[in-house]
């Protein structure tokens, strides 16, 4: 990661924890997980609480739906680390890799419900252009998606518009497929807190 303090600036107890995780899992902690341990009072603690609420808190959207939203936002931002992480997590959450690949290839033809498809298009538009219109919101509502569901999807979008930027700026190391799969398993078991 950059700047260098994000590689070496952790407290001794945190470094010990990183070492234990490496020993037991056989792989280093991903940079996204490391970052929240650096001066956690400034960013890590409040960021984890918000992201966990958005991704695992009460919602009419399933965990798989929200992980898919995270992947779609990350794709709109062209962030390789988060595309890999959340594509893998969505695939495991749905237990359906072809479905997730189909949505990311072409949401218009993928076999998903209209409401989820419309919501994914909304998040894609918002992330790429920075804004959406009331008319675009009405298009999503017309598919039967509730106002609360849109708010929940916007929280996912906000979480990943932050994380994607930090992943690029701090230069998170992109993992191999096995690394993303292991991270996905952890995120489904423990969430983001």
């Amino acid at each position, binding site marked *: 990661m*950059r*700047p*260098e*303090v*994000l590689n070496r*600036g952790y407290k001794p107890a945190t470094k010990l924890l990183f070492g234990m995780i490496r020993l037991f899992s056989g792989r280093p902690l991903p940079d996204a997980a490391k970052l929240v341990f*650096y*001066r956690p*009072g*400034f*960013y890590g603690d*409040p*960021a984890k*609480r*918000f992201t966990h*609420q*958005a991704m695992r*808190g*009460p919602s009419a959207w399933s965990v798989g739906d929200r992980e898919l939203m995270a992947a779609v936002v990350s794709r709109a*931002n*062209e*962030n390789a680390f988060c595309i890999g992480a959340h594509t893998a997590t969505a695939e495991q959450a749905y237990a359906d890799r072809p479905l997730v690949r189909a949505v990311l290839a072409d949401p218009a033809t993928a076999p998903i419900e209209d409401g989820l498809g419309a919501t994914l298009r909304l998040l894609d538009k*918002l*992330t790429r252009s*920075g*804004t*959406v*219109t*009331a*008319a*675009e*919101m*009405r298009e999503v*509502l017309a598919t039967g998606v509730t*106002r609360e569901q*849109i*708010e*929940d999807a*916007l*929280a996912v*979008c*906000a979480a990943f*518009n*932050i994380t*994607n*930027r*930090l992943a*690029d*700026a*701090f*230069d998170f190391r992109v993992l191999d497929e096995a690394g993303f799969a292991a991270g996905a398993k952890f995120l489904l078991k423990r969430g983001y807190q």
Partner: protein
Amino acid sequence: MEKRAAYQILVDRILRGPGETSTEQRARAFENDGADPLLSKVATSPTEVTDADFDTARAAGRTEDQLFELVIAAAVGESTRMYDAALAALDEATR
């Protein structure tokens, strides 16, 4: 609302909590005032951030901890503008 409250706690912490930068510096990064090329890239073209951008910022006198704070402020600021714009559109659509 719980999610929005948790988001606001994050924003308040970044903008007003203790840090190595002044609250004014963090506010300028959050607003993307355009004064710092690294922070503007974080907000609007993060895939283009390079090591050289960090080198330039350090050469201008910023410490690594200050850069940590300001990069986060820039990222949270851009995300907040999108979140607010979308919630305003949702309010208009459901009024």
